[in-house]
């Protein structure tokens, strides 16, 4: 401890975030093995490996003295066309990590299971026994980086313990934790949004960060299309922060008003004392048109608009040969997205409501807010609500003593003048509005009637790190209240750490409890897994939950080898085989309703809209009795049916 009661570690600003990042990545690595492979994730495994294949092709081309060959459209497309509806950054990292860190079992029976040709045993640094872990490693590292970023960002507003608490709360959310383990894009884009947000924040006082903001935005664009929304939220904050700059000014070449009108305007202006808004020319009458003069465009936005697309283009070979057409295809794919099936409050949503059913739209619009309220740990929500109140009161304080919780490390600089390079030099940076738009922006976007039905917290996951920062402000406030009450100095010094630990404990406990079914977890308000199921909230998606049933499936593999895997994609089945969790040659009758009858063992992932697949098994296998059910805290997630299980006693219906 130093003289002001802070551990020495706080003085080296990189130690705590590094420790938090390592602890987070360690936690995720420790548990990811019990997390099943998600459907989309399996496609990204395949795409990542293919993308790696292009680098191998490039190396071959260089060795053969024809490096340009690897850049030809045919070669580029043969590798990078796979899964081109999503940008490549994370998939490329997944493929690279797989190539570097898997324990190669790639020859022999498993050689043909790869999407690219495997010519021999790979030389690797075999950190991970499962190939899927090697794929997931970059996402897990990025999640650690996200936690470190939350700490660093929160330190702009609160003390070290509260910032550390915010960092822990950012990952200790069951749904976020689920996504942080897997090699998809939802946790990575949340980290990227945070990174861009931080760079933007710092760019308000530093031109260097303005340039970095554009580079980071390019990374975000190359991660997931949610990045398109990031500037919208930042613009709202920027305009709010610089709202004092809005002025009305006469437009150039404006004409004079008729005399009667000019007299009226002049009279009105005089009544206002000549202050504010209208600038009245001394001669020649009033201009007819006025122009709203907004604040100047800052470097960060210029950088995002210019460097962002450049970085995206550089990172995405699929764009290289037809950048405009393919970028348009990418945008159209997501702008015209189909409606998903999603269970919310007991209904399956997959269609926009007809105009006559406005109530259905209103119900649907509540989804992001209700889902957040029922999935984020309640203590975290309470802390965030407290933090929101603290930040809302901040500008209305009566004196310095009335700022109990947050510190302002970036007060307006005395005598500084704002410029496009340092656009926040002379004003308060409005952290409350910044956090508000970063949290409400993603949620509000999902609530819009024009937004396709997506469902899932993952679609507004970018809000969660900022929500955790808000909770950090609330934690600082609670700590401050407790500190003003406690007299003994030692006790007071211990309070920040003790309260940070205590207030993070429920989130950590809930998160650990939820694993590996974070998607089906609901908080104390909802009543946990069972409560969420009773409320008719979505339980899962992506077919990841089959993992606990694999040993049973392996043991009961039918002699015909005809297995129906339902929502578990063939790519996922193949990765389970490569991971050694299923035998080589395990059957897969394919997808669709018609193939259920061809199977002798079938699983059904229990989502509301998948009910039809269970009934197909009833008919095909002539039983309603599952041979096995996987449940978490008594809530079923997957059922397995087996043809030829003991036939049911056919009980006649009563008359």
């Amino acid at each position: 401890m130093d003289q002001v009661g802070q551990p020495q570690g706080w003085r080296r600003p990189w130690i705590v975030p590094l420790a938090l990042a390592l602890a987070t990545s360690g936690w995720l690595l420790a548990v990811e093995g019990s997390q099943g492979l998600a459907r989309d994730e399996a496609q990204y495994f395949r795409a990542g490996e293919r993308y790696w294949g292009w680098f191998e092709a490039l190396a071959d081309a260089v060795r053969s003295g024809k490096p340009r060959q690897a850049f030809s459209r045919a070669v580029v497309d043969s590798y990078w066309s796979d899964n081109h509806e999503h940008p490549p950054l994370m998939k490329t990292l997944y493929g690279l990590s797989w190539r570097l860190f898997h324990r190669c079992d790639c020859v022999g029976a498993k050689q043909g299971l790869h999407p690219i040709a495997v010519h021999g045993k790979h030389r690797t640094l075999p950190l991970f026994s499962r190939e899927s872990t090697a794929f997931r490693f970059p996402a897990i590292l990025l999640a650690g980086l996200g936690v470190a970023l939350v700490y660093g960002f929160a330190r702009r507003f609160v003390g070290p313990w509260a910032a550390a608490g915010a960092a822990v709360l950012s990952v200790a959310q069951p749904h976020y934790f689920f996504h942080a383990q897997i090699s998809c894009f939802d946790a990575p884009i949340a980290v990227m949004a945070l990174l861009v947000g931080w760079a933007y924040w710092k760019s308000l006082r530093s031109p260097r960060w303005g340039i970095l903001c554009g580079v980071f935005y390019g990374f975000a664009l190359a991660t997931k299309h949610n990045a398109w929304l990031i500037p919208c939220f930042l613009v709202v904050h920027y305009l709010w922060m610089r709202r004092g700059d809005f002025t009305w000014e006469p437009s150039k070449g404006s004409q004079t008003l008729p005399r009667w009108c000019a007299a009226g305007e002049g009279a009105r202006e005089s009544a206002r004392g000549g202050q504010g808004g209208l600038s009245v020319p001394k001669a020649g009458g009033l201009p007819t048109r006025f122009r709203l003069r907004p604040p100047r465009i800052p470097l960060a936005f210029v950088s995002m608009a210019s460097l962002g697309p450049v970085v995206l283009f550089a990172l995405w070979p699929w764009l290289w040969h037809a950048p405009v057409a393919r970028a348009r295809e990418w945008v159209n794919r997501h702008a015209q997205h189909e409606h998903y099936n999603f269970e919310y409050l007991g209904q399956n949503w997959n269609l926009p409501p007809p105009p006559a059913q406005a109530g259905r739209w209103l119900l649907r619009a509540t989804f992001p807010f209700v889902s957040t309220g029922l999935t984020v740990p309640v203590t975290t929500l309470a802390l965030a609500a407290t933090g929101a109140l603290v930040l809302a009161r901040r500008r209305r304080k009566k004196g310095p003593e009335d700022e109990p919780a947050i510190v302002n490390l970036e007060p307006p600089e005395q005598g500084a003048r704002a410029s496009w390079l340092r656009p926040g030099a002379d004003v308060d940076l409005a952290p409350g509005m910044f956090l508000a738009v970063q949290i409400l922006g993603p949620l509000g976007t999902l609530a819009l009637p024009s937004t396709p039905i997506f469902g899932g917290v993952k679609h507004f996951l970018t809000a969660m790190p900022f929500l955790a920062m808000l909770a950090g402000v609330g934690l600082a406030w609670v700590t401050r209240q407790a500190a003003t009450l406690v007299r003994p100095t030692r006790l007071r010094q211990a309070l920040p750490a003790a309260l940070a630990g205590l207030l993070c404990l429920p989130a950590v406990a809930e998160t650990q409890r939820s694993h590996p079914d974070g998607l089906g977890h609901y908080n104390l308000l909802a009543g946990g897994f069972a409560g969420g199921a009773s409320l008719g909230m979505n339980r899962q998606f992506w077919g990841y939950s089959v993992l606990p049933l694999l040993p049973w499936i392996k043991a009961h593999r039918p002699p015909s080898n005809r297995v129906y895997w339902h929502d578990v994609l063939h790519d996922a089945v193949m990765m389970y085989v490569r991971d050694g969790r299923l035998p080589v040659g395990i059957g897969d009758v394919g997808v669709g309703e018609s193939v259920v009858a061809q199977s002798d063992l079938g699983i059904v992932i229990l989502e509301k809209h998948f009910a039809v697949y269970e009934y197909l098994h009833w008919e095909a296998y002539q039983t309603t009795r599952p041979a096995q059910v996987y449940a978490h805290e008594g809530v079923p997630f997957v059922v397995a049916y087996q043809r030829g299980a003991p036939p049911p006693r056919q009980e006649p219906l009563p008359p």
Partner: protein
Amino acid sequence: MRLSSLFDADSFRRNRLAYACAAGIIALALLETANALLAPLRAPTDQDWRSAATSLRAGFRPGDLIVAAPAWADPLLRMQLGDLIPVAVAGRLDAARFGRIWEISQRGAQAPESQGSRVVQSSRHGALTLRRYERPASQVSFDFVAEWNHAIVSRVAPGGQVSWCYRAPDRFDCADPPAQSVRAELLEIDTSPHLALATSLPGHATTVIEFDHVPLGRELAVGAGLHNVWLRKSGKGTVSLRVLVQGRELGRIPAGSLTGWTLRKFDTSALAGQSESVRFEITVDDPTARYFGFAAEARS
């Protein structure tokens, strides 16, 4: 040690509300942590399910209905007792014909099927409660799905031309358009199972399913809806089911993508005890991706 040496009483008096809020958050954290640790222990175990199933089997009689409360526990229930829940029971029209209902419940839930019934037996099995309910059951005098092979099925064109559908061992085959059939089938309607008379529909003709000499009771219960979540998502048309007895219309049931499983009970008390013809006429405004099903029971 005196409390006043630990806490600043003056400060407390000045900021009671703030301290109460802070204390509330701390208390919430403790409560939530305790709940996170203890709640998993409240979930029913396999042993609980086995014990409840053993008790149920000891008292089960053919024709009893078995339900789970809440309904999401149904797969676990069926894993233990699925041999006592044939497809016809799982895909029932409703629960009116069942006089004895076994319910395995948890967390104080009650199934809609058992509401309004009398509890005659109850036992605890860990986190589960097994109850047997009894109530007066409807007597089904004619089950239109079970008796599907007694129907006369035809397609009537707008001009009145009738084309007959011919009975195969498991369905009626209709020639107009070819390869369309009417059959008793387990459907997914509103994400629930329903054993129903099912057909896809031609846009230009009325599908007519008629039963002669149906012994009528006090009411005619008819349920209808559209099968298959993907078809409901992609199609837009509305199907209309017209119900006629003795050529007199009792009512119509519309079925669209969002109407779910619609159950109507038509009063036939004036015809109770008589055998009459019952006719179902099915039309659709846009047949694309529409697969319709209905079930009906004459009850007394």
